[in-house]
């Protein structure tokens, strides 16, 4: 694929900027395991998949377990609507991702990494296998990596088969174990009981690449970028009604309005931050920042112009969740269907205020009672659209 298809629109200072591949691993092999983890923890790096769990803490939990088998899993099941930055990273910066996995392996004492690649990205497989083969030849994988005695690490690529829910870490592990991708109850967490019952860290593609950069340049350098609570940069996958869609790397903490200027999407009616499971932010709130302390996001930014029918947007998201719910727990299995039926009523101008309030209460119940992140976040878009665009979706004219 050429760079035109990658569509990298802004190169920030970390992932698409100065950090050379290989520096991080070189430094890591000269450090004690605890020092590596301290470095990552001090950097303030948080998970880039969207949940924002501190990476150093996760690594430390897995490192503490004194068992023989541990696993490093790279979550490349990038399925959130509007997200495509991991595809770009894996196409252009696969070495940095694998380097991050190798560093993680050294840090927690694991010899095996697994990259779980979504089935939709199978066209990347041959390229990724070639990168892995080259790393073996260069002594960056296998036994005694970079001359460090006893440090062996290997990476295997496993394919998904078209299931959004497998982006949830325990569903991903189920899938790796040859099961239906149905999320597990947590606790126990994967850092304790993960793949094959062994301690497992599951990290997003971007998180692992950033971890390699942290080791290369140090926690202090990383911390200086972004905000106090959200350090480093974030990749944004921008699509929708703007003139310059693509992937942008920016320091954490820029406002939605600033981002819209960069992507030439000024005058937007709303922005969906965080994909289908994120929230729909109306123009009045564009001063909010994109950060863990502001509007948190895995990086999906979908711009809606003034002409967009927000109810149609809500329908698209709810159809997505009805399709992708694994069906295991009741709030998600039935709740999403009920919300979609509600949208049907709204479209026909037949939804009473009482019924709409019931639907919103149902959405809140789903957020509280669903088993995994899918069901807990699937009502977000519906709720935020109803809340912020009530004048648009209520009292609609009956369809001709």
């Amino acid at each position: 694929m050429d760079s035109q298809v990658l569509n990298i629109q802004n190169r920030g200072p970390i992932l698409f900027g100065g950090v050379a591949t290989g520096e991080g691993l070189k430094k890591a092999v000269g450090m004690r395991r605890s020092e590596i983890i301290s470095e990552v923890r001090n950097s303030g790096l948080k998970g880039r998949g969207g949940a924002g769990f501190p990476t150093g803490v996760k690594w430390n939990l897995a490192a503490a377990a004194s068992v023989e088998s541990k696993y490093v899993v790279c979550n490349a099941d990038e399925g959130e609507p509007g997200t495509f930055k991991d595809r770009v990273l894996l196409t252009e910066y696969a070495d940095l991702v694998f380097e991050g996995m190798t560093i993680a392996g050294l840090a927690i004492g694991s010899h095996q990494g697994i990259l779980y690649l979504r089935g939709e990205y199978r066209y990347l497989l041959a390229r990724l296998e070639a990168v892995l083969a080259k790393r073996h030849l260069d002594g960056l994988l296998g036994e005694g990596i970079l001359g460090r005695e006893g440090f062996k690490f290997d990476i295997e690529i496993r394919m998904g088969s078209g299931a959004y829910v497998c982006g949830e870490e325990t569903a991903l592990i189920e899938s790796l174990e040859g099961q239906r991708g149905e999320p597990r109850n947590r606790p126990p967490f994967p850092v304790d009981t993960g793949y094959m019952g062994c301690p497992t860290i599951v990290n997003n593609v971007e998180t692992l690449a950033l971890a390699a950069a942290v080791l290369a340049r140090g926690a202090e350098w990383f911390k200086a970028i972004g905000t106090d609570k959200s350090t480093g940069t974030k990749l944004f996958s921008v699509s929708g009604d703007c003139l310059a869609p693509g992937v942008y790397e920016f320091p954490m903490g820029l406002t939605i309005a600033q981002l819209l200027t960069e992507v030439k999407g000024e005058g937007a009616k709303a922005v969906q931050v965080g994909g289908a499971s994120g929230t729909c932010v109306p123009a009045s709130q564009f001063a909010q920042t994109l950060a863990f302390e502001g509007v948190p996001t895995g990086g999906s930014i979908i711009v809606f112009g003034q002409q967009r029918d927000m109810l149609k947007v809500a329908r698209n998201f709810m159809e997505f969740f009805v399709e992708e719910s694994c069906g295991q727990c009741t709030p998600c299995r039935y709740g999403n269907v009920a919300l979609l039926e509600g949208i049907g009523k709204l479209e026909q101008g037949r939804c009473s205020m009482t019924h709409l309030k019931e639907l919103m209460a149902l959405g809140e119940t789903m957020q509280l009672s669903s088993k995994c992140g899918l069901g807990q976040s699937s009502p977000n878009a519906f709720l935020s659209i109803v809340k912020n665009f009530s004048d648009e979706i209520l009292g609609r004219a009956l369809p001709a």
Partner: protein
Amino acid sequence: MLATEQQRLATEIVELADHYGRDRCALMPILQAVQQRYHHISEFTMQEVANLLGIHPVEVYSVVTFYAFLKAEKIGKFVIRLCRTISCDMQDKDKVARQLENELGIRFGETTPDGKFSLEWANCLGMCDQGPALLVNDQVFTHVTFEKVSDILEGCRRSFGVHPMPQGGH
């Protein structure tokens, strides 16, 4: 299925199990390989795989029916999956969908009578900045227009019997 074909399939499944292992973790890779070669996972396959991995065939069926890319029913040699998620939707994926239906004479969810093409919807393909996007088997096409639809299908037809994948892309 002819006895000889069945035998060949059984041998291939044994080879796959030798390659990927005979534990439960090998289930997905084995099924994915069969799906790629045969465009579906037959009951016979499920039974054979179950025997090799020492699990009940219902376990295999349960996995096959969970994943969108694994099929118990036979689908076309070329599976066209058009993204229907919001960004592609806003980039007029409906027009592309109608054009695909017109060209192939089938609706979404159907396979052409000659077994060459299946039309399916896909959820977000991760090409949101370059929609409408579709996959033909493993190959991704972006910025798909009316005109491009017939080129893509023509590419498939030309490569039929030569190579399972259309050449070129996006």
